[in-house]
């Protein structure tokens, strides 16, 4: 089987994730609540653990609904979070959500055989074995959410990119934002694992933010960088025969380093007398 045949489902999954995650990542960065995605991803994993304990298939529909339910609940809490003016307090709540969700998942799974392995696979993912049906379902849901965010682009943008006190309170829109966020993350964690979901959300958006200014430019550059990183990661995974997900995350980790080095060189050449 050709390399591209093996890697095509995984690559398609990456492309779908890049299309949605870079956009959401920019929102998260603007809000300054970086670990919200890690927390939500872990809550999704916790939901799957509960489903696993109840004897349901980890990747089945029931498990996904439990995970979605748990994540939506967390999303409501996170939507309320905006009301807290203290940024540190918000980060504390998000951090606690992550740690507690992870701990509870470990406690639940410690009683089951293979539970720890499931936890590990929810963490690092097995994107090489993803099925086309799963990718198709993901594409469908992502398309609906993308449409929602394209239509109400300004409204969502205003929500994230204005200061709390300037903003007219609209809990409904805030909730809608976190609900779409929760859906995107639940589905992605199921297929790609917590590590990849967090990496795709934050790393490309952050790297692009270092280099360019406008929202559109960051979105485009972030998408391109993530795509290049995914291709390089998948290629490396294939040529060196390594698990794909963690390799992609490691490669993406190089992006902000490269951008930082680029900025440093640029600054050094600008300050030095020509």
């Amino acid at each position: 089987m050709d390399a591209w045949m093996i890697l095509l489902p995984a690559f398609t999954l990456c492309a779908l994730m890049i299309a949605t995650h870079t956009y959401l990542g920019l929102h998260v960065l603007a809000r300054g609540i970086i670990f919200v995605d890690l927390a939500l991803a872990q809550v999704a994993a916790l939901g799957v653990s509960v489903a696993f304990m109840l004897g349901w298939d980890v990747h089945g529909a029931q498990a996904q609904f439990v995970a979605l339910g748990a994540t939506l609940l967390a999303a409501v809490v996170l939507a309320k979070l905006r009301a807290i003016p203290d940024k540190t307090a918000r980060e504390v709540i998000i951090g606690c959500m992550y740690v507690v969700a992870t701990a509870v998942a470990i406690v639940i799974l410690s009683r089951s055989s293979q539970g720890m392995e499931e936890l590990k696979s929810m963490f690092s993912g097995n994107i090489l074995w993803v099925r086309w049906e799963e990718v198709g379902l993901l594409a469908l849901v992502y398309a609906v959410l993308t449409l929602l965010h394209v239509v109400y682009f300004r409204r969502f943008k205003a929500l994230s990119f204005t200061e709390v006190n300037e903003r007219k309170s609209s809990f409904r829109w805030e909730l809608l934002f976190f609900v779409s966020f929760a859906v995107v993350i639940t589905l992605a964690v199921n297929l790609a694992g917590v590590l990849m979901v967090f990496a795709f959300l934050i790393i490309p958006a952050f790297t692009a933010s270092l280099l360019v200014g406008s929202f559109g430019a960051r979105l485009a550059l972030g998408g391109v960088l993530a795509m290049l990183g995914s291709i390089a990661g998948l290629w490396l995974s294939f040529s060196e025969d390594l698990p794909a997900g963690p390799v992609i995350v490691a490669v993406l980790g190089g992006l902000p380093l490269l951008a930082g080095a680029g900025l440093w060189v640029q600054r050094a050449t600008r300050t030095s007398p020509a």
Partner: protein
Amino acid sequence: MGVMFKEGVLAHPHPRQLLHALLYLPPSMAVAAFPLVGGRSSFTSHFLLHRTCLEILMKKSIHCVIALLLTFAPWLAQAALNVVTSTEDIAALTLAIGGDAVKVKPLTRGTADPHFAQAKPSMIREVYQADLLVVVGAELEVGWMPALLQSARNDKVQPGNPGYLDLSTAVTLLDKPSGPVTRDMGDVHAAGNPHYWLDPNNGVLMARAIAQRLTQLDSAHAKDFERALAAFEQQAQVKIAAWKTALAPLAGKAVMSYHTSFVYLANAFGFRIAAQVEPKPGISPSAAYLTQLIARIKEQQIGLLIMEPYYEQRSAKYLSEHTGVRIAVLPQSVGATEQIKTYFDLFDAIVAALKNAGAV
């Protein structure tokens, strides 16, 4: 074709290059090319050019035949069956029976727990290219094989087709649960305990099933497979007798194991697995359970704890410190250590490990 005439390329021509050069060139060019290909001196090339046309054509056709043979020889060798196995144990058995007629690739290493496997690109490629996929079955690979089979999209090796061989159907499984299996029971397999390769008598049954399937897929080598199987069975008979003698002191003894992996070994060599470190298969023991185990070890006078290398050893050491039970870390698969290359090596190593632990 241009590249064929460069110096250096032709100094050590590959048989295929020879074939292409001689088959596809017009005769006159072949004449010119031939001395180059052969690396002859200018004198012989001069001489060759002055031969008659008939001689040249004869010469060319002889070389064509030789080149053809040379070209197809590697192709014939590649006609070996591509066999992919889930574990190294099955790979070793398949190699013992198939010999040169098969190319065997195991999907997991003998150093790792075969219940789990991390997806790697090579696994998909190997299953895709496989003519035969041999698995332990009995749900041992249930956590990863279905997903892999789906990704590899190779109809030949899908369950139910001749290219799929589930060896658990060739042996009698122990520990078959009587009632319905639930998550509550831990890592219990509905079909029975899947660690059956640890009984050397089952190894013979597995080898037979492999030989039968190889014969079905490659009847041209039927005689070879039959011969290899006979040799394997004969050697197994001698070896099993020797292992039984070596492990005779264990017969009838109560032994504890970490996981449920060693029931077949116990069955084969006449000792009894009286307790397991895991409260339920696949679940690590809690502190309270370890305390219970200490009482049980003393009560039943269990003197030996056997376990696989890939489980945590702290629980076992804790038990050993409190009861004096001896710990023997036994290789559970071919490839568990570098020295274990064949199925017979595995039991030699198990016997050696038990001797080292002072168990026999």
